[in-house]
């Protein structure tokens, strides 16, 4: 773009009497007072000192940040105001660059590239080898991804529960047949695996509640009215932590999936699609609650080869 192509619609005005903003003389058209910019800069001056002092005196975040904000706002206001004042000074216009106007250049470029390609691909065999070797090289680098982590193997399918694992509470205290009264619940783990994310269960004592439905094949899983469900949400894996006593449901705090404890922990509301897996329980000779085995299906959110 050349200078001749531009036109200045309004000539730059002589600069104002008092220096800084105000480029139109004291009372001319478009005259703007200079004091707001001055005030802004004074604010910056004071606030900068305030910032340093409050840092040294270890003042609160509110003071420190307040001063810093004021310092930035003051000078920002001054510049924006000043620039706005100047904006009216000069309006210029000019041409937009026009793409694809250069048909000749484009043709020449195309020819040149075409020639280069021909020079290179004249060696047919070499060209093919280049593409082949280059491709294999790039693909070979994919193995580096393997350094990032293991393939899933069985970790998504199994938990730390084994036949005979004793149930313990958060504090590691074994759960016995007398731990819970009917209608109450607690969170339990396999002994030796406290805090194991995928093994956490909700243990509930139903007692002899007539509304409780024992599912086919699970007749022996709930001795003396104890039932245990995985506490890992089948939606996206959050701990299903809220127990609603009245409705006898568990609610997940993440997306509010709701599981019916009276009916195999089937999802009754929210986005989960599968029930919470049930852990088969037993009571050993000492009266401790134990697992009959690991869960019979994978716990937690679904994955492709789970089915």
């Amino acid at each position, binding site marked *: 773009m050349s200078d001749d192509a531009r036109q200045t619609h309004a000539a730059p005005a002589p600069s104002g009497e008092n220096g800084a903003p105000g480029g139109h003389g004291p009372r001319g058209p478009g005259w703007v007072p200079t004091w707001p910019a001055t005030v802004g800069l004074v604010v910056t001056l004071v606030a900068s000192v305030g910032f340093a002092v409050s840092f040294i005196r270890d003042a609160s975040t509110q003071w420190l*940040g307040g001063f810093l904000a004021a310092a930035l706002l003051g*000078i*920002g206001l001054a510049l924006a105001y000043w620039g706005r004042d100047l*904006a009216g000074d000069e309006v210029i*216009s000019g*041409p937009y660059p026009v793409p694809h106007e250069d048909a000749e250049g484009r043709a020449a470029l195309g020819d040149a590239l075409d020639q280069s390609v021909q020079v290179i691909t004249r060696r047919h065999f070499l060209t093919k080898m280049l593409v082949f070797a280059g491709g294999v090289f790039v693909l070979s680098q994919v193995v580096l991804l393997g350094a990032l982590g293991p393939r899933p193997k069985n970790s998504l399918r199994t938990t730390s529960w084994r036949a005979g694992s004793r149930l313990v509470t958060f504090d590691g205290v074994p759960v016995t047949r007398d731990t819970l009264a009917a209608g109450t619940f607690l969170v339990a783990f396999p002994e030796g695996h406290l805090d194991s994310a995928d093994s956490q269960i909700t243990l509930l004592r139903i007692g002899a509640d007539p509304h409780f439905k024992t599912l086919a094949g699970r007749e022996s899983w709930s001795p003396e009215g104890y039932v245990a469900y995985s506490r890992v949400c089948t939606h996206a894996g*959050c*701990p299903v932590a809220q127990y609603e006593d009245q409705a006898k449901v568990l609610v997940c705090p993440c997306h509010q999936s709701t599981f019916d404890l009276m009916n195999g922990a089937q999802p009754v509301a929210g986005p989960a699609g599968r029930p919470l897996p049930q852990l088969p329980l037993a009571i050993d000779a000492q009266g401790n609650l134990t697992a009959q085995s690991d869960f019979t299906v994978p716990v937690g959110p679904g*994955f492709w080869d789970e089915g």
Partner: protein
Amino acid sequence: MSEHRLKTSLGRAFGAAPTPARRAARWLDRNLGGSSILREELRHIFPDSWAFFLGEIALYCFIVLVATGIFLALFFHASQAVVIYHGSYHPLSGVPMSDAYSSVLDLSWNVRAGLLIRQVHHWAALVFVAALIIHLMRMFFTGAYRRPRRINWLIGLSLLLLVGFNGLMGYSLPDDLLSGTGLRIAFSITESIPFIGPTMATVLFGGDFPTTGIIARIYPVHIFLLPAAIAGLLGAHLGLLWLQRHTEFPGPGRDDRTMVGSPMVPQYALRTTGYFLLLAGVITAFGAWLQINPVWLYGPFRATDATTSAQPDWYMGWLEGAVRMFPGWDIQIGGFLLPAIFWPAVVLPGLIFTPLFLWPWLDSLALRDNRFVNVLQYPSQRPGRMAVGAGFFTFLTVLLVGGGDDVFASAFGWSLPVLLRALQILVIVLPPLVAALTYAIARRRSERWLVS
């Protein structure tokens, strides 16, 4: 040529004394050359409109993020080694936690100005994404994406994706209960992808969730990889803008070949520097007075602790809403399982962003109009586009509301299942309704336009 003779000849050529500016110009020319090009560029034309400030807000947020991020990086420990906390926040005294979480507690309670910088960093991220989205809406509704700016539309959208993703990485770093829950859900979403999902999840996370190396893994992504990509794309975005120049709204003396505005130096440069400082000031004020992400209240992440009403940062709200609202349709196919979360969390984002990326081409195909343009359109000039846009953003807004459905339900005393069902209906019914209404209104306005 001797120094002295050069000076006098320069002085003669410009008929002026060697001021500091003139000396600087001389230094530049002798060391770098290109004086006449620079001279030209000082007069680069910037059209005067508030609408062009939206993209600048985004740029300035990035600057604030890098500046505050460097400060944070000096104190943050990307390690999940277990430590016992003994810092100034007494309620957590003696609690075992990761080194990462403990270092964020120290940043917030023991490092001077640490909490301020942390909160400014977080607020800048929230404002960044908001600015990008409003900027995108401006581009969309005024037709700024048309040729020759289609490539810049692609770059802008990529920026939105990268920035949102980097925000997600950022708030996963402190290893508090909320961020751990977010990572948990991210793992589950990855796992849900057919065929490659489970392997992808364990490879990316370094094992089955929860792993002990994930913070160390996302740290370089958050502070280096993505910021570098964002800086590169920003450079390309602004470079193209510089070459093609801003669009302009219709007005006297303006057409597709001629633009009108202020010269960059001094008018525009002064103003935009002022705007940058104003924005930095406003975000700093947010950081000073509006608490954000008080991680000490959430406690350290433990896979067995549950959050209460967990909420992601606002720009993830639409995804959260989709995940909450989509029904639990887990599909068994032969020996395989397609989990329900795959649809809202993987397919839906694809369905949202693919047409957005293709929009400039779809638009020119639909109108059979491929001219290159520089003058913008007013939104109602194109009733069809306005309807599509209004429907689209209505859809996203309903999803966003869905992301906080539990909060709304308890705040207004509504039943959550009823609200959820209402939202599930609204998300399907409302967008076409809003689109139709918008079309009718825009149509009438554009007819009036044509008459006058």
